[in-house]
């Protein structure tokens, strides 16, 4: 149970998140899938920081958490604003800019 476990778990979770982002139509669930991807990268960084005996991975994970928090807050505000004007939560219907 060395680095193979870390690599396989984080790759699987990352791919599940990417699949959810491509397939789901609800923007909230798309955001949750982005969270899954960010978390899998966090797990990879922390596992490798344990293997390599260096703290840089944990600092990186902390920075990723800060970026993810900012991203979630702005994204949810955007979703809320879109919902207030359109009363619809399907990303396929947001095609006003389509030529």
């Amino acid at each position, binding site marked *: *149970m060395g680095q193979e*476990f870390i*690599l*396989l*778990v984080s*790759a*699987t*979770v*990352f*791919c*599940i*998140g*990417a*699949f*959810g982002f*491509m*397939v*789901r*139509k*609800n923007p*909230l*669930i798309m*955001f*949750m899938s982005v*969270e*899954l991807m960010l*978390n899998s990268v*966090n*797990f990879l960084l*922390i*596992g490798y*920081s*344990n293997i*390599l*005996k*260096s*703290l*840089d991975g*944990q*600092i990186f*994970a*902390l*920075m990723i*958490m*800060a*970026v*993810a*928090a*900012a*991203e*979630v*807050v*702005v994204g*949810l*505000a955007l*979703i809320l*604003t879109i*919902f207030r*004007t359109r009363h619809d*939560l399907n990303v396929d219907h947001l095609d006003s800019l389509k030529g």
Partner: protein
Amino acid sequence: MLIDLGWFSFDLFQITYDGVLLAVGGTAILAALGVVLCSSPIYSALYLIGHMICLAILFLMYGAEFIAAVQLIVYAGAVMILFLFIIALLGGKKESQSFDFHKFMALSFIGTVLAELALSARVGPTRPVTGIFDEKLIADVGNAKAIGLELYSKHLIPFELASCLLLVAGVGIICLSKFTYKPPQRRSN
């Protein structure tokens, strides 16, 4: 704790550690599948909370106590509560799911990416990067203090930039929620 049966000996602590690691990792993957496959957003959010808690346990087992605590407080606490508030505000409508060509394409693409990533698990030991902190020193001063020392000395500029990012996000939210969007008036001719 080494248990020796004569013809077969094993380390009980190591086997327990590996078993817990496998169980929690498997639960994390299953919870991630639940997030993606549930049709109702409220169940997805609950599965995501479970996934975060599993990841926090994994962080603890890899010796990152401070990050585990931050994961629980920031992610499983603050961010997910925000998600649940928004779901309650917007009304979690169920989404009808059907398997069509689009999903098949996404599945095949993701399968390819996953196979490529799984190949990367076959790389041998990489060149070790030696940090300032080794295991003994971290056990000496504690994980949170070691992270603080590293963060405020070597990584000070990224830390300040992250605080700027959070400030910009706050200002952006105020702009988004204060100035409401008015649809443009159609010109009458």
